[in-house]
């Protein structure tokens, strides 16, 4: 099923994500990160929380998780994340493309701190397999 291309530009309500020490430590341990600071790719956790809450739940978009593969990922960091801060994650559908039976959806998620400064920009492209 082709994704609804008219949704490009749609921005979802931001979600709040507190960076809890225990969760950061669990993440750091499993990826082999050394030190007590926040691993840069912990940005995935708030990015994904926003994506799961909003994008996958969007019936208008019709994204079926069982058909989704992660194709491409980019992070741009303005500064490191810090334990104890609360980040807001706001996702926008940046692009939807169809290539044969496959669709690609690109999501841009802005992670901002309490002062509304952008800390990380996450760009994720998902490949959605079509019907065989």
């Amino acid at each position: 099923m082709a994704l609804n291309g008219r949704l490009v530009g749609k921005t979802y309500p931001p979600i709040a994500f507190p960076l809890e020490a225990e969760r950061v430590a669990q993440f750091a341990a499993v990826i082999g990160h050394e030190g007590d600071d926040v691993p840069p790719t912990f940005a995935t956790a708030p990015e994904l929380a926003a994506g799961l809450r909003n994008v996958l739940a969007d019936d208008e978009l019709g994204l079926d998780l069982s058909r989704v593969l992660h194709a491409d990922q980019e992070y741009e960091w303005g500064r490191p994340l810090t334990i104890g801060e609360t980040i807001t994650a706001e996702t926008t559908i940046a692009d939807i493309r169809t290539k044969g039976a496959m669709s690609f959806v690109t999501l841009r998620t802005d992670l901002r701190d309490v002062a509304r400064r952008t800390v990380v920009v996450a760009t994720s492209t998902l490949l959605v397999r079509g019907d065989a």
Partner: protein
Amino acid sequence: MTIATEQVHVGDELPTLERVVTREDVKEYADASGDQNPLHLNDAAAKAAGFPGVIAHGMYTMSHLATSIVRWAGDVSALTRLRVQFRAPVFAGETIVAGGKVIDVQTDRRTATLDVWVTVERDGKTEYPIRRGVAEIRLA
């Protein structure tokens, strides 16, 4: 402490970093990241998608790569950009190896650009779950 501009030269290779990706790691990563896609947790779901068994999250492989870059660069604040394409799956039990090479040093801005990758040996061949990734580094 972040590596100094004067210590970084075009052609420098990052020390490779190996990790065996266990099924338990994949489960633990699913919990820590919040990505509970059954492709990573349930063999039947992975088989339905055409894989022989559960696959690691692409983001797990990317995180391992980021760990190797941060170890080389000396500090988390050094990594300002990382872009990758996921080109091949990683199966539970396999060993991933992160590597990279300095392809540009911007001495005036005290930044460097790296070509980065992750390999896995499978059936006598080297596969690239990540190939031609790009990392931007802020040097001291």
